[in-house]
């Protein structure tokens, strides 16, 4: 490998590898600098050029995503995206993964994941108003998976509850592919006045650089590089510094102090110190602003004696922000942080010359052009279409009846009620939660712009993506948007979290490319811009890669919160209709997995144009009062969707599914663009007319009545009492 050994290099291959770099990258660094980097500089390149910070393998695919649209105040490129949801009111959103930290320490890993994403949104000047968590674990039949889940859930609760930001939704999916490498993604939504948007580009030579928040310790040193490594057995015994510990108390004080600091109007730029800590914040802020900084590490507040320059620069201690403040105003801002019991120290100043010069007292320890750190090389690796993917999950006994099959699917851990989890999250604090967790999407009223509300949902399906990456990517965006539309909201923006295995495997590269293309195609059709996101690669363990898992969080706007819908059936005698395309398949379905014990075939690909029509139609129907309830058909198919509407509304239903001659397919087949809705008898004709003129299929399914769910599908008759449904679903 080391063919250039001839050049008398200052570092050995082992040194370079230990810094998380390739030999060719080291040579590139020497070339860019025209000299040898020193040891500290090499380590800084190691974290900044990690996959986590630099998107070396994903950058070229991310270009496929649509990022512009009406109301986008800030697209990708900042700490979070921002979209205008009411005149002068912006909503910031961003998703972030904390998969590897959570595998190593589920509690602290998940807690710091929440803390980190909150600070990304805070960096935009936005007050965080909601959290969503999207989780993947191995089967809960295994004690180890349950422990992991319980640790993660209590970590999210620990941080989110204390900080006073409601966790209003998320996902919880179990697949054995995640047993060794769980996925813990958290998204945060914040609210900000459009004229108060904060940004991260440093400016104004002579302006002080203010460090604010908690002290720096030896936490998470090299975390960013670490998050880009494959998890192997040895990593569990790796240096304790790989684990970051959060302090939600300091985090809450940091939010209040930062918002108060921004209110003074003297903050020029701000960014959180997350992955790669001080290194990342100083180099990104300088590079974005086309300026430089002179920093003195001796002034950095620290928790431990004897910390080296490298440790101070790479530490990922939590609850810290970096601010550029107008000259002469540093004391004003520092006083605000100190009042909240936090550290605030001027550690340097902005310089006109674009050089990042870092001193440790009198000694110059780093002297780099900021862009050399922020502009990492990108890689293109061979892609190869995966062939013949199929899994035998288990060989379950076949059910005696469709009713029994329904109960089994309804009780499957991925489909069943998640109440035991979201009951542990404060989902009501801040007084905005109009529709709480458990619905298709959460609905939050905006006190700043009544009667406007927003709806938020996050979705992803690794099994579908594994079988057909484009279908999985497009499906994630389509389903999240449809969830939002089912509440009556118009989707306006999205953020994507891409969780994949090693991009150096040709099949994974193919998955990544096609999943992103799927997200792009669906979002473009729906006119939903992607305003930010996150990529987590190398989700591998000794037993192989995870299912490729793109997740998409969508936010939508409801112009009048009183029109918000839920999935619950509302009234005896209401008519049940199926709105949307009929296409469905058992390939990749919950039924296939749970009842038939297999994961195989080709799931239905979403027809993005037809889906966009459906997503646009629902909010219009809701605004005109034509719907009583709406619920998208997803995992478990039509039978499960109907059961969920019955359980939520405490009503039974009598339905007939026509069209298919295969009862299993009719009841449990999954397709991406279907909605179970109800309408009062008197409005049925108007509803049907509206669907027809929008070019969206609609079919009558039945009526809300009694205390049992009765479905006739082809040759099968299914009747299950409401109590039985609830018991199966609630477990």
């Amino acid at each position: 490998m080391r063919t250039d050994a001839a050049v008398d290099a200052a570092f050995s291959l082992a040194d370079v590898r230990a810094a998380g770099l390739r030999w060719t990258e080291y040579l590139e660094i020497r070339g860019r600098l025209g000299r040898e980097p020193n040891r500290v500089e090499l380590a800084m390149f190691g974290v900044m050029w990690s996959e986590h910070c630099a998107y070396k393998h994903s950058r070229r695919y991310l270009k496929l995503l649509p990022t512009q649209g009406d109301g986008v105040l800030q697209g990708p490129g900042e700490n979070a995206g921002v979209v205008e949801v009411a005149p002068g009111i912006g909503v910031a959103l961003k998703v972030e993964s904390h998969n590897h930290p959570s595998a190593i320490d589920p509690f602290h890993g998940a807690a710091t994941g929440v803390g980190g994403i909150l600070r990304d949104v805070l960096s935009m000047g936005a007050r965080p108003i909601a959290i969503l968590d999207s989780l993947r674990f191995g089967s809960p039949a295994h004690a180890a998976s349950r422990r992991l889940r319980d640790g993660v859930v209590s970590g999210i609760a620990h941080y989110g509850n204390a900080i006073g930001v409601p966790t209003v939704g998320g996902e919880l999916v179990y697949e054995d592919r995640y047993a060794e490498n769980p996925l813990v993604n958290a998204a945060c939504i914040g609210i900000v006045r459009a004229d108060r948007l904060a940004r991260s580009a440093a400016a104004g030579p002579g302006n002080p650089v203010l460090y604010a928040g908690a002290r720096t310790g030896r936490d998470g040193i090299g975390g960013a590089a670490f998050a880009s490594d494959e998890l192997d057995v040895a990593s569990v015994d790796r240096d304790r510094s790989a684990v970051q510990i959060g302090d939600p108390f300091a985090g809450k004080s940091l939010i209040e102090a930062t918002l108060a600091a921004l209110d003074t109007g003297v903050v020029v730029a701000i960014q959180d110190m997350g992955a790669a800590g001080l290194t990342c914040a100083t180099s990104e802020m300088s590079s974005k602003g086309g300026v430089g900084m002179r920093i003195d590490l001796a002034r950095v507040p620290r928790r431990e004696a004897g910390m080296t320059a490298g440790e101070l620069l790479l530490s990922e201690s939590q609850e810290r922000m970096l601010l550029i403040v107008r000259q002469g105003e540093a004391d004003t801002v520092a006083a605000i942080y100190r009042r909240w019991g936090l550290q605030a120290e001027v550690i340097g100043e902005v310089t006109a010359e674009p050089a990042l010069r870092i001193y440790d007292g009198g000694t110059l320890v780093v002297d780099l052009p900021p862009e050399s750190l922020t502009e990492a090389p990108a890689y293109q690796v061979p892609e190869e279409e995966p062939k013949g993917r199929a899994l035998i999950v288990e060989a379950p006994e076949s059910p005696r009846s469709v009713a029994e099959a329904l109960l089994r699917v309804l009780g499957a851990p991925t489909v069943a009620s998640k109440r035991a989890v979201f009951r542990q999250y404060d989902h009501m604090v801040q007084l905005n939660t109009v529709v709480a967790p458990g619905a298709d999407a959460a609905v939050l009223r905006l006190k700043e712009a009544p009667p406007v509300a927003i709806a938020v949902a996050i979705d992803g399906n690794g099994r579908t993506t594994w079988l057909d990456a484009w279908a999985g990517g497009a499906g994630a965006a389509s389903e999240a948007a449809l969830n939002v539309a089912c509440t009556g909201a118009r989707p306006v923006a999205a953020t994507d979290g891409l969780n994949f295995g090693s991009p150096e495997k040709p099949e994974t590269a193919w998955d990544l490319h096609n999943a992103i293309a799927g997200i792009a195609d669906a979002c473009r059709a729906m006119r939903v811009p992607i305003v930010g996101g996150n990529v987590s690669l190398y989700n591998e363990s000794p037993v192989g890669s995870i299912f490729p898992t793109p997740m998409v969080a969508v936010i939508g706007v409801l112009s009048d919160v009183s029109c918000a819908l839920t999935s619950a059936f509302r009234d005896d005698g209401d008519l049940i209709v199926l709105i949307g395309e009929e296409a469905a398949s058992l390939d990749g379905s919950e039924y296939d997995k749970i009842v038939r014990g297999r994961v195989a075939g080709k799931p239905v690909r979403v027809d993005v144009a037809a889906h966009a029509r459906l997503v646009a139609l629902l909010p219009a129907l809701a605004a005109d009062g034509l719907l009583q309830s709406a619920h998208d058909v997803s995992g478990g198919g039509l039978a499960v969707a109907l059961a969920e509407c019955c359980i939520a509304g405490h009503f039974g239903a009598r339905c007939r599914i026509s069209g298919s001659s295969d009862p299993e397919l009719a009841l449990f087949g999954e397709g991406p663009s279907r909605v179970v809705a109800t309408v009062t008898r008197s409005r049925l004709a108007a509803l049907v007319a509206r669907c027809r003129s929008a070019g969206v299929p609609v079919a009558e399914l039945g009526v809300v009545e009694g205390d049992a769910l009765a479905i006739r599908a082809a040759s099968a008759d299914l009747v299950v009492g409401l109590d039985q449904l609830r018991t199966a679903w609630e477990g």
Partner: protein
Amino acid sequence: MTTANATAARVRLTILLKDGVLDAQGQAVERALRTMDYDAAHVRVGRVIDLDLPAANWQEAAREMCTRFLANPLIEEFEITRLDEEAR
């Protein structure tokens, strides 16, 4: 607190964060003690778990459950002591 059962050992597991690991609770308690005018320093807060274990292999069992479940060895250290008699 001690157990009368001769075949059971009363065991105490004391779990503390390693030096250098952020102890937010310890810091908060230290600040509070100082505002109350106590001259306290280097405050660390941890957990203690008292339990009965089969006397035959209490040490081994205790060590294993700490390593596997009760503590995270990356960031925490633990001590195992026997409460109902001198440790053998």
